[in-house]
């Protein structure tokens, strides 16, 4: 079982106390009525699926019941950091992670 650091409780808790809530840092369009169907569809339904670092929204469901962000490596499942909503991550993907032989 993973131990995840909750930035609100300030300590490591077991994974079963948490739920993941999808990709983080998705801003809602300021004027939804002015969006094209494509822009709105991208906002609503399309998510990144990177190999490497992924920024995700998690909730400490059994503890303080607050959301926070994590940076997780989708290859190793390692969680590099957790940080409060409204702040920026320390770790970001260096470059588009497309390698030789990848189906793009």
């Amino acid at each position, binding site marked *: *079982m993973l131990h995840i650091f909750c930035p609100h409780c300030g300590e490591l*808790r077991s994974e*079963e106390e948490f739920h993941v809530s999808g990709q983080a840092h998705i801003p809602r369009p300021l004027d939804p009525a002015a969006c094209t169907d494509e822009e709105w569809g991208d906002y609503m339904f399309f998510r990144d699926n990177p190999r490497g670092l992924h920024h995700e929204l998690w909730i400490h469901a*059994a*503890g*303080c*019941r607050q959301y926070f962000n994590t940076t997780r490596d989708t290859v190793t499942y390692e969680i590099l950091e957790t940080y409060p909503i409204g702040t920026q991550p320390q770790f970001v993907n260096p470059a588009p992670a497309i390698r030789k032989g990848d189906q793009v």
Partner: protein
Amino acid sequence: MTTANVYQQRPTTEAKAESPLFHADLKSLIGKGRSNPGVVLREKKLLGHLTIRGNGHDPAFAAGVHKALGMELPGALALVSSGDSSIQWLGPDEWLLIVPTGEEFAVEQKLREALAGLHIAVVNVSGGQSLLELTGPKVREVLMKSTSYDVHPNNFPVGKAIGTVFAKSQLVIRRTGEETWELVIRRSFADYWWLWLQDASAEYGLSVAA
């Protein structure tokens, strides 16, 4: 005062009140079981529970709570007690206040007066949750069976309160003394916890106290 509708929710007439474990008839179990029990369970029933929400970083909020309750607003994972009342941290903007039976209405009014003008919420949740107290040398063993959280004294000193996964559900564990722990439980789960705790403490001997 705020414009919130605050009223006495506890019947002041002779209306019959049933605790969440009324059906278990704990009274008839008092004094039965092993003579030297490892775990003693006490239902602290029908207390006044209030959740307080507000900005913990606002000194005016902390001062208002202190003025109304005479207790400091606790920081993360902390529990502060004064007499029979206690206030604990639930989240960065949420606290749980537990006061003796019948005092919740007056306390809520006092809080609203002291916090007037601030962006806050005070909600009486007395009917929705309950408190179980576990005392004894084997309580820690029972907790270790039930939760993945580390309840070793190094990690869980007296005065700490945490929300966590417990058995197949969730609750709040509070350590109020060297061998005394409290569980804040949902009313609708009371029967489940009662059955679980009977099973988990059977090998150490369970006794029920008044």
